[in-house]
């Protein structure tokens, strides 16, 4: 899921400075699990805004904020509340915020959160980054542990000289990704893979902005027409 973290009160008030009334949009998926876009988070936001003498004209938690069309339909029932607000605050990830921008072409739309990474929830509201969406997965070669993400240098051919007692140069709190890969490959009997030289990544696969239609989508459409 997409991990987000709320911006500080000060930063938000600075960015909202020009406006007095707001409509809040959350998200029932990732941002709810992160506690940044659920009803409780929105209530807190409302209180903070009211304390600063601002008003909240309404709020809504769409099923999936980044599903632009669905969110637009869900927002129909809040048409008046949205119209009466000077600005929209989206309390989800950067993608959800930009759904808002598309839905409200004539209104300022502001994010309340910083969007951090694609994360695994390891325990309730504890998140770890395991994949950084590189566009061409190579973890079949690395024991299912992603060095691009788990090694701060994204090294592909073994540990750097900074590894200290199995921990990473960048932080002793994290284990060196390549030591983890080594231990795992040993356990699953694939240590020979660590002798293979991985070539440089093709970063063109990560070139943004991405856009994709499901591969069979056009075909389906054509079939329906026919």
């Amino acid at each position: 899921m997409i991990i987000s973290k709320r911006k500080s009160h000060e930063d938000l008030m600075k960015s909202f400075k020009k406006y007095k009334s707001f409509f809040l949009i959350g998200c029932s998926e990732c941002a709810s699990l992160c506690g940044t876009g659920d009803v409780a988070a929105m209530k807190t936001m409302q209180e903070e805004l009211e304390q600063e003498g601002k008003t909240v004209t309404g709020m809504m938690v769409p099923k999936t904020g980044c599903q632009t069309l669905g969110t637009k339909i869900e927002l129909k029932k809040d048409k008046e509340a949205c119209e009466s607000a000077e600005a929209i605050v989206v309390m989800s990830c950067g993608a959800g915020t930009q759904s808002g921008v598309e839905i409200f072409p004539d209104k300022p739309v502001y994010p309340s959160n910083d969007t951090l990474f694609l994360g695994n929830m390891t325990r309730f509201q504890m998140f770890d980054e395991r994949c950084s969406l590189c566009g061409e997965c190579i973890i079949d070669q690395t024991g299912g542990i992603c060095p691009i993400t788990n090694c701060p240098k994204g090294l592909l051919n073994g540990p750097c000289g900074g590894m200290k007692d199995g921990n990473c140069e960048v932080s002793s709190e994290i284990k060196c990704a390549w030591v983890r890969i080594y231990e795992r490959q040993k356990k699953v009997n694939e240590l020979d893979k660590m002798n293979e030289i991985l070539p440089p990544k093709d970063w063109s696969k990560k070139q943004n902005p991405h856009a994709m239609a499901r591969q069979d989508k056009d075909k389906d459409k054509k079939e329906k027409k026919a």
Partner: protein
Amino acid sequence: MSFKEAIESGKFVITAEVGPPKGTDITTMIHDMHILKGKIDAVNVTDNQSAVMRICSLAVCKIAMEQGLEPILQMTCRDRNRIGLQSDLLGASVLGIHNVLCMTGDHVTAGDQKGSKSVYDIESVQLLQVVDSLNKGKDMHGNELKGATSFYQGAVVTPEANPLEPQLMKFEKKVRVGANFFQTQAIYDIEKFKSFMAFARKSNTKIMAGLVVLKSVGMANFLNNNVPGIKVPPELIAELKAAGKEKALDTGLNITARHIKQLKDEKICDGVHIMAIGMEDKVPEILQRAGLL
């Protein structure tokens, strides 16, 4: 004799290090270069070491040549993508710099530009492959070059990494992609180093032992606690302690000299790389004490 010719001929080679300064005042650096001239086989020029921004390695390599030293261009993958690295390699080549040491590079979090974006588009093993390819007249994507390079490429290895096996596997990869020589992370325990050498000797490559001069007991403890892959054994710390504060540095110089002599006399490795860290001017004295000058 060039560094390459010397090491390939079986001569016990000596390299030292020059760290480019932060700023445009290069008087101390030039002074150190004069002291080193004629006494070593080549000098490493570090590449924004510890991720602290300084004069680039390439420019200082050129200056080293003008001062009569043969440079080894250290090249890290932290700050340049594949275009930048290859382009700098071609640049080095036309300036007459023909030794390159390929390394990953300390992460930016270690340095003084913490908000910067780390690159690591390619890494040390792949950089060695790139150098090999430029030597063969092609860039890393297979495009023809108008004129090939002729680099003598080296790499680094940490003989006392813990755990060691993944590091050794990486060492073997580096040999496979053409690392002609290695300079090791600092070593202090010659017996342990011998067992690394027993492993390394199975590969066709040259090994230079890295030596860092101990200045004090405090420094030895600092290395043990903070620097990855360095272990100063208790006997050496005791030796420094016994010498007392005033004689600690002198003892440190003796230790380095003694290690050089043993490594050479017992033919344990192919040379030494002395990292004097701010005491480059002491290198001739170390060599004298080792009986090499």
